Structures are given as structure tokens and as C-alpha cells.
């Protein structure tokens, strides 16, 4: 069971994109079961609730519960389902694989979920850089329409759904669900103040559910094999189902790996079936477990570290988008924090003062320390700036994400920051070597 691939079962197969192959492998059977087997939308929502499925986009919110937030009476308004295919969190590359290699699995998941939500129009919001993913999905959608799986009266069931690919144009913040909604409406992708929550008033002022690509793909298998089956995969009843992990950094075999939710971090990095250890045997120095927005973990912290929502929350970090970025002992921590700060300074949408002003400040101060021009007070300054940016002072949690790498790296590697300031160079890495040539 542990080794069975569910979400990636068809990836790598010849012609994995074509509808014929998908159907040969049992594709669209789940849709048939639901639409022609007398399933009500309520039954499907209940099944998803019982599976324990939690959102794979970052926050880990229980999917069935979220679906239940759509008001019973929508006052005549349509309900929209948006598939979040913006995948822009540094270190994350699982949705790209699902869409490029097995588009029909994603589409079937969307149709099923749309049915559960009584939604008649759905969009896949895909980041602009995924030209190939968008093309593959467009072709797959055309196939599905030809075979009566989309459009009017699907499989003769009376249920109709339109589903379109909508391409973004380069902006990380459009992955945040209300930024995505604004962007889909043809505006700058600036997150909205909540409430109202999208389930009540989202895109086009109508009830809207936003779900990640992987979340929606899971729905196919919940229908096919049952909520019980799904809920028994994974570490415990709160962390269920098959999960995709994105492993990058200087490991022997980076890539997307599927495992039951709660795989041990050390198995992912060192396991034969996964990363196969560190390149050149260089020891691990630090790991970011959930994309750029997650707090860093030290080698001691990755001992007994189940990669799931609660396992990482217990370590005061997060599973996020399951982007596990591993760094070895040749990595300068200040340099890493500076690189992450550059990302956030570039991607802030600019609406909230603490975030708009704070992100470039953090980058500036980190750059100063990295360049050997820092002062010891700068380390406290970084913490002070960060504390003014967090704690719900902003419209969205981007600002909290931006400070996570700064605060966690200072808390865990303060000595290295101090060394950088007093010695005016890196403790380790290429820049340490170059500077060390200067006679003391």
C-alpha cells in the first residue's frame, strides 16, 4: 500500500495525456458513477468530508467543510469553482506535473467537484508561464467536450458544466485566492479584505470556491475507492490521503514524489525511493519544508519530522505547498535569507503599508549584512521590522510569509548572522572562501 501510486499512477506512461489512454485506465468512471449512479451533490460533499481531505494549496483547510460554506440559498446567483493552478511558491512544481502529464485526472476532479457544488461554470486559473500546461489542458478539454463529458447534459444526466482555462500573466500574489479572483475579473491581482469570504461572495460577487489542482485531483480517487480507503492512507485521521512532495536543492534525486501523507522528512531526503541522499554526501544544514513562506528547520528538527499539516505545525513551520528545499553545509544562511527576501520584495502587491514598505527594507538590510557592511544592531532591526509586518496587520498572509524565513533563520542561526557582521564575510560557501584569502 505504501508504495502504490495514486495521483502519479499514469505519469510517465506513453500518451498519458490522451483521453483514450485515460479511459483505458478507468478514467471518467468516477464521473459516470456519480452522474448516472444517483449520487446527489450532498452525498458527494459528505464523502469528501469523511475522507478527511485537506486542501493541498497551502493552508490545509478541510475541503468538504469549505464546500459546505456555500449558502443554501444563493439568491439566484450562480456558484463558481476556480481551480488554483497558479503554482508560484518557490520550490513548488507538483501541479505543473499533474497538468502536463495527466490533464484528464485534473479535469475529472474539477467536474466532480463542480457537480458537488452545483456549479455551472468553472475556470482553471493557470500561471502565465505554464504555456505547455495550458495547451495540454485546452486540448484535453476539447476531447472531453467531444465525448460529452463537458458542456450541456453531461452523460445524459441533466447536469451541465462549462470549464475554461484562464491564463495569468506573472504575479505570485494571484495564487492567494482573493488575488486570484480579482485577477480573473480582469483587474490587478490584489487580495481582498475578508470577510466576505469567497464562499459567500467571490468572483463576479457570486459564491465561489477556490481549490488547488492536487486537491481536486484527489476527489476522483475518493469517489472511485471510497472515503474509508482515502482516510486510512496517511499518518492519522487528521492527515489523510496520498500526497505529492516537491524535493529540491542539492540532493541526489530531486523531483516530485508521491507518498502517504506524513512521510518522514528523512525518508524523503535519504530514502532509496525518493531523494537518495545529499549530493557528494554533504551534510544537511537547513531545510525549508513548505516553500519560501515556511519557517526553516535545523538538522535536529528534521529528526522524526512527519511531512503533514500537523507534523510541521508542531515544529512551528508548515507543510504549505509541500515544497521541501534542502540545503547543505556549504550554504550561507544570510545569503539564503537575502534571496528569499528579494522574492517577497518583488512580489508584494503593495496594498498594505507594512508589507509594501517592510519587504524591501528586509531585503535591503539583509543585503547590507551579506555584503559585509552590516552592524550588530541590524539583526535586531530585522526582527523589529518583521514584528511590525506580522500578526494580522495586513490584508493577506503574504506579509506573514515574508517574515517567516527571516525570523526563523535569525532564531536558529543568530551566531552566523553575528559572524557575518563582525567578520564581514560568510561563515561558509563560495563567498567565505574568496574573502578568507584576504590576510587577517
Amino acid at each position: 500500500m505504501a508504495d502504490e501510486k495514486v495521483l502519479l499512477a499514469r505519469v510517465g506512461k506513453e500518451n498519458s495525456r490522451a483521453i483514450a489512454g485515460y479511459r483505458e485506465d478507468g478514467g471518467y468512471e468516477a464521473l459516470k458513477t456519480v452522474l448516472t449512479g444517483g449520487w446527489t451533490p450532498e452525498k458527494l460533499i459528505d464523502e469528501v468530508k469523511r475522507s478527511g481531505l485537506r486542501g493541498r494549496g497551502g493552508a490545509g483547510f478541510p475541503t468538504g467543510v469549505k464546500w459546505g460554506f456555500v449558502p443554501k440559498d444563493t439568491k439566484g446567483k450562480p456558484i463558481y469553482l476556480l481551480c488554483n493552478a497558479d503554482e508560484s511558491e518557490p520550490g513548488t512544481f507538483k501541479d505543473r506535473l499533474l497538468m502536463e502529464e495527466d490533464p484528464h485526472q485534473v479535469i475529472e476532479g474539477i467536474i466532480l467537484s463542480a457537480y458537488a457544488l452545483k456549479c455551472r461554470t468553472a475556470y482553471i486559473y493557470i500561471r502565465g508561464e505554464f504555456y505547455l500546461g495550458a495547451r495540454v489542458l485546452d486540448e484535453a478539454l476539447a476531447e472531453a467536450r467531444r465525448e460529452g463529458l463537458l458542456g450541456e447534459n453531461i452523460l445524459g444526466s441533466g447536469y451541465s458544466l462549462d470549464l475554461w482555462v484562464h491564463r495569468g500573466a506573472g504575479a505570485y500574489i494571484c495564487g492567494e485566492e482573493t488575488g486570484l479572483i480579482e485577477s480573473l475579473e480582469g483587474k490587478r491581482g490584489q487580495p481582498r479584505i475578508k470577510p466576505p469570504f469567497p464562499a459567500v461572495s467571490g468572483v463576479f460577487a457570486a459564491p465561489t470556491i477556490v481549490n488547488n489542482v492536487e486537491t481536486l485531483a484527489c476527489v476522483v480517487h475518493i469517489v472511485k475507492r471510497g472515503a474509508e480507503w482515502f482516510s486510512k492512507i496517511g499518518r492519522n485521521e487528521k492527515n489523510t490521503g496520498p500526497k505529492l512532495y516537491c524535493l529540491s536543492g542539492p540532493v541526489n534525486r530531486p523531483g516530485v514524489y508521491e507518498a502517504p501523507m506524513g512521510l518522514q522528512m528523512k525518508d524523503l531526503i535519504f530514502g532509496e525511493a525518493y531523494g537518495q541522499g545529499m549530493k557528494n554526501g554533504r551534510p544537511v544544514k537547513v531545510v525549508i519544508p513548505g516553500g519560501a513562506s515556511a519557517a526553516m528547520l535545523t538538522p535536529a528538527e528534521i529528526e522524526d519530522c512527519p511531512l503533514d499539516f500537523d507534523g510541521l505545525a508542531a515544529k512551528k513551520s508548515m507543510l504549505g505547498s509541500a515544497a521541501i528545499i534542502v540545503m547543505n553545509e556549504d550554504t550561507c544562511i544570510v545569503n539564503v535569507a537575502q534571496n528569499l527576501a528579494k522574492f517577497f520584495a518583488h512580489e508584494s502587491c503593495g496594498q498594505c503599508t507594512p508589507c509594501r514598505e517592510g519587504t524591501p527594507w528586509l531585503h535591503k538590510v539583509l543585503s547590507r549584512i551579506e555584503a559585509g557592511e552590516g552592524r550588530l544592531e541590524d539583526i535586531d532591526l530585522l526582527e523589529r521590522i518583521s514584528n511590525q509586518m506580522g500578526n494580522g496587520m495586513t490584508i493577506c498572509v503574504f506579509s506573514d510569509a515574508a517574515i517567516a524565513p527571516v525570523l526563523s533563520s535569525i532564531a536558529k542561526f543568530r551566531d552566523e548572522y553575528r559572524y557575518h557582521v563582525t567578520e564581514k564575510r560568510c561563515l561558509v560557501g563560495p563567498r567565505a572562501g574568496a574573502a578568507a584569502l584576504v590576510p587577517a
Partner: protein
Amino acid sequence: MSHRRYSVAESGQPAVFPPEALKRIDELLARYPTKQAALLPVLWVAQETWGWISKEAAEEVARLLELTPAHIDGVLTFYTMYNLSPVGRHLIQVCTSISCHLAGAEGLIDHCRKRLGIGLEETTADGKFTLVEVECIAGCDKAPSIMVNDTYVEPVDGKKMDELIERLSSEAGE
């Protein structure tokens, strides 16, 4: 890429969509309950038509979608992928986010600068190459990851980059 994003350049020529583009725009409009929602897709059609989006093209889009030019400018300057001035035939986009950074992306950029004789956001004199830095493009397991126009090339080192530039420089028709 934030540096070049504050104004939309003029082409000096009126922008009129060819008939096939107008047909695509009609199809796009049918997908949404508002005209405004078709804005990003229609801007993509404009960029595919002219290679970049001029002030004139933006105004034509504004007219078609019944939006103000100011709204279009706001959108164009928010997103990084719309070219607000002409770019080279091959837009080389090098990711410098964390996983690519760890794999030496900055070195790769330095290599490209020297090899092409241009800086970031610049185009070679023959109009063949433009070099830009981008944030994570979801190719982190094959770092450093780059895109040339709409296609991934990953992973790339100095040698592969040289071969790529060589091949693109000598492509037929150039």
C-alpha cells in the same frame, strides 16, 4: 523585472487586430459574464499578435472591452509577462529564486551577460536576444531552470547555455 514596468511605450502606429484575432476575442468574451474578465486573455492575444503591447494596442483593447485606458495601464504594469516595449526574438528568462540560486543561477546570468554583451532587461543589437531575471517558474527540481519564450530548458549550465545561444543565433531565417 519590476524596473521596466512603469510605463507603456508607444509604437507610433495604430493597432488593428487581424480578423483571426478578433474571432478569438469573440470566443473569449463568450466565456465570461463580464467583458472585463476577458482582459488578461485578450491582452495575451494582443501580445501574440504584435510581440508586445503598445499604448495603441492597449487603447484598442480598452475600446473593445469598454474599459478605460487607465484601467488597462494599471493591469499591464501589475503583471510581469506583458512586454511593454519590444523584446528580442528570443526572450531568455533565468530563474534566480531559491532552488535555482542554490544551483548557481546568478553565475548563469553573469555568463549570459558576457556571452551576449548585454545586461538584464536589455536586448542585443541584432534584436535576437533579451535577457531577464524571473522568480520561481516551477522547474526547481531541474535547477537552474530557464525559459526561452514559451519553452522550458532545464537544467542549464554554462555549456548548455552556449550551445543554446549558438543554435538560436544560427536558426534558419535569421
